[in-house]
């Protein structure tokens, strides 16, 4: 240890050359993998989106035709609005609820690990199984939830009423994913050093003041991750609504993914579906960038 500290040359090097950018070369393999698995497929989608593809040998360049068609397609616009509504609802419920659940978990109890594992359980269930569980659970004739709601005097049938279908979908997503927000928030809460709380107590802060001025600022990092994950996931949700409502009743729960799958896999309209995907990608990119920038900008103040 001592020779290292007294080694003048070492000190000099670190003092004048704090950054050695050569380490970035180590990232090169990742670039190659991402290029292979993400960038090149994305380029293919862009290639498809400007062509009318009939089979392997006949394809015609059509320019922006598919984009124009998609943007003027009322079904696309409706599905888009529905998708935004769904993401906004899900975020508005899951984030506060997740924080509340995390606040409710004791940090020191012997039961804490058990509670955490129980919380993590819904996250381990595959999407289509979640859909199937809720398909049974919410059925008005035999499902536990559906029968109970109807017995309580409310007429409830998610297969017939658009509003009920929506509520069931939101409930299902909350059931599936609130734990993620709760676990992330809990991790954030446990990383707050005790002196912060002691200082707040000395200042006579009330419970909500502790939450607002001590915990919430320290939770920002994990909440950014939670919101981004939930935003992207709920914006791309496919399997659960597909299993539970299949987009119905009517088109009332047909989200973008559902419509896209019908186009690409059902009708095999590769060109329009590719244009659709590029538009979809652009919007996700915009949302994530906007959100990230807003949060980071507040950080700099």
């Amino acid at each position, binding site marked *: 240890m001592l020779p290292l500290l007294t080694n003048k040359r070492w000190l000099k090097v670190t003092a004048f050359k704090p950054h050695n950018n050569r380490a970035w070369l180590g990232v090169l393999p990742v670039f190659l993998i991402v290029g292979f698995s993400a960038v*090149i497929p994305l*380029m*293919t989608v*862009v*290639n*498809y989106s*400007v*062509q009318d*593809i009939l089979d392997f040998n006949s*394809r015609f*360049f059509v*320019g*922006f035709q598919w*984009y*124009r068609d998609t*943007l*003027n397609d009322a079904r696309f616009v409706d599905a888009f609005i529905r998708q935004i509504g769904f993401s906004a609802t899900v975020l508005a419920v899951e984030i506060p609820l997740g924080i509340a659940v995390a606040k409710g978990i004791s940090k020191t109890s012997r039961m804490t690990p058990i509670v955490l594992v129980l919380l993590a359980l819904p996250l381990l269930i595959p999407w289509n199984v979640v859909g199937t569980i809720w398909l049974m659970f919410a059925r008005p004739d035999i499902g536990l939830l559906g029968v109970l709601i109807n017995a309580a005097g409310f007429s409830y049938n998610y297969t017939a009423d658009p509003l009920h279908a929506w509520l069931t979908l939101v409930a299902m997503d909350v059931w599936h994913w609130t734990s993620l927000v709760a676990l992330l928030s809990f991790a954030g809460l446990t990383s707050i050093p005790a002196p912060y709380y002691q200082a707040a107590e000395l200042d006579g802060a009330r419970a909500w003041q502790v939450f607002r001025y001590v915990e919430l600022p320290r939770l920002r990092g994990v909440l950014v991750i939670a919101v981004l994950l939930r935003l992207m996931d709920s914006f791309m949700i496919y399997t659960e609504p597909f299993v539970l409502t299949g987009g119905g009743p009517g088109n009332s729960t047909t989200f973008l993914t559902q419509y896209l799958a019908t186009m690409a896999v059902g009708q095999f309209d590769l060109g329009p579906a590719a244009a659709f995907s590029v*538009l979809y990608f*652009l919007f996700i*990119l*915009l949302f994530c*960038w906007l959100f990230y*920038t807003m949060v980071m*900008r507040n950080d*700099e103040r």
Partner: protein
Amino acid sequence: MSWMAWTWPTALFFIAIGTALLILTVLELRQPTIARRGLLPLVTTRGDRFFISLLSAGFIHVLWLGTMDSAVVWGTLLSLIVAIILMRWG
């Protein structure tokens, strides 16, 4: 050209983006960017402004294709102008 269903317009599009990224890399090595605040209500580096230009170009095209009947070339021209303004003063 038939692999991955390439067409010349898309190939040129990606070559353009690739070249731009290469130029930005060289510029960054020669003359590291300084984060600053311009027209945009946030502190940006050169790369940030390039990304914002690309994203706005995308959405200008979306808006153009969605609302206008005229040729999309004008939208492209508009996004070029926007990009220049953003890169220079953004």
